[in-house]
């Protein structure tokens, strides 16, 4: 167990170092969510006047949505790092050492958590500057749920990377999934203003679990708990899938 933790931390550190050495990428990771926030924030500023929104500013409403969407992107790209490692022979080198297999997936979760926390802090800071207000509970719920969702997606992205072994496949999947998954939730629009079918789909959409749970942080901890539970279960399933996918990779090399 101690060894597994050491492996996980070592792999997390490696990924953070690689990220840190790509300042442009860091900048994009931080700036992109701000563009969503400020762009959507002003474009749809007046939707809160519609009946169905319960007062407050749109930025207040939108921030959890943007934060969760950014976590989706952060997680989605995670598998790319392993494809690069595969192409360079680095992954094979890891696999012929006594590295705990699960550390590859677990480190993705930790790395994702660090990235999501930093990203979210910036988003929340800018939202505050834009006049939004969040209770401590909301902030805590946003962090926790965004990390659980981002971690699940990272594991899924890893699984896809191990099986498909091509960057194009991961890029395609992320492009295909992230935006629709965000719009099929109450991330941008109040739940009772969603068209009926989207409302129904959203109930099974993990993105919606995270958004709804995050917004409940100030009022309804039971809702936060059930959504966190669902996302936790999703995380376990995705991690198991990624570990299985690694075995598929080893059979194919």
């Amino acid at each position: 167990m101690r060894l597994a933790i050491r492996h996980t931390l070592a792999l997390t550190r490696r990924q953070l170092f690689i990220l840190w050495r790509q300042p442009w990428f860091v900048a994009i990771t931080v700036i992109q969510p701000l563009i969503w926030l400020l762009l959507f924030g002003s474009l749809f500023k007046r939707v809160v006047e519609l009946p169905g929104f319960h007062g407050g500013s749109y930025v207040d409403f939108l921030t959890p949505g943007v934060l969760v969407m950014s976590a989706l992107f952060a997680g989605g790209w995670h598998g790319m790092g392993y494809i690069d490692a595969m192409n360079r022979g680095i992954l094979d080198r890891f696999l012929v050492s006594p590295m705990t297999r699960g550390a590859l997936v677990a480190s993705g979760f930790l790395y994702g958590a660090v990235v999501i926390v930093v990203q979210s802090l910036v988003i929340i800071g800018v939202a505050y500057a834009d006049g939004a207000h969040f209770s401590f509970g909301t902030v805590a719920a946003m962090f926790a749920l965004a990390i659980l969702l981002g971690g699940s997606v990272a594991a899924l992205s890893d699984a896809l990377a191990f099986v498909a072994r091509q960057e194009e496949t991961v890029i395609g999947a992320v492009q295909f999934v992230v935006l629709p998954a965000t719009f099929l939730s109450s991330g941008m629009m109040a739940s009772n203003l969603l068209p009926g079918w989207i409302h129904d789909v959203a109930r099974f959409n993990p993105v919606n679990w995270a958004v709804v749970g995050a917004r409940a942080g100030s009022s309804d901890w039971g809702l936060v708990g059930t959504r966190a539970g669902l996302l936790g279960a999703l995380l376990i399933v995705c991690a198991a899938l990624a570990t299985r996918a690694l075995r598929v990779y080893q059979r194919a090399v």
Partner: protein
Amino acid sequence: MEDLAITTDGLVKTYPKGVRALDGVGFAVERGTVFGLLGPNGAGKSTTVKILTTLTVPDEGRALVAGHDVVRHPEAVRRTIGVVGQRNGVDPDATGRENLQLQGDFYGIPSRGLRSRIAELLERFDLTESANRLVRTYSGGMQRKLDVAIGLINHPSVLFLDEPTTGLDPEARAEMWIEIERLAREDGVTVLLTTHYLEEADRLASQLAIVDRGRVVAAGTPEQLKSELRGDTLVVELAASVNGRALQAIDGIEGVHEPAIDGRVLRARADAGARAVPAVLAALEAAGLPVAAATVSRPSLDDVYLRHAGRTFAEAER
């Protein structure tokens, strides 16, 4: 068994698309020696290494590395081996030191011991000054050295080197050869080396297995393999492609065996090369086949390969 570092028996591996990479590979490697797995690209060398290093599993057959079964106890195998893969397994976005540190973490080496081990390896491979630079700034030769250093971090008893000098310039290759010799001689490491350079196998390996189309076609010391071939190698280059007629022409010349023709090149073994040449040349002239060049040489590994695989090494590489 005690003095064998690796034994393999009847290894078979078929890839999803039906490509049979290994078709019953078997050989044994003595402890503390450099063992060469020689063969053209695609012969099955890398697949063999992948199985022995637990990266993938065979469909059939058995393999022991340092006494451990690679399928049943892969963790035990992983702890005792070092691997330098065909592709550079180094991380270009990390420094040399970080690359070594990460691998040391995987082996669970206590941090103080690891620090000194890293310093020792950097020194040995002449990388101390570049240790804190990103690997992407290293030359090809330096990256390769770091690659070997990473493979040695856990004091392996068996080291796998998969095509260690492919893509290196002659100078870096010569340095690598010296290092490999030193590993076996001074550190007592058993080295399994795959190569498609005949010269490299000849120079480094004390034992060889020649692999072709997923099978071991010949095994022994380079000297044994060469001395199994009778006499000298005779190569005659004809002025034009003639196929069968050249074989007929030299048929029956005393002391000339195993004639074979490939385009304009006629090969044969000769009991005494110097004496056979005039007779062969005369026979070809008499048959109206002009000769462009003729050479006589001691048997080489290329000849061994030709003998066992039925084609020259260069042909197989094509």
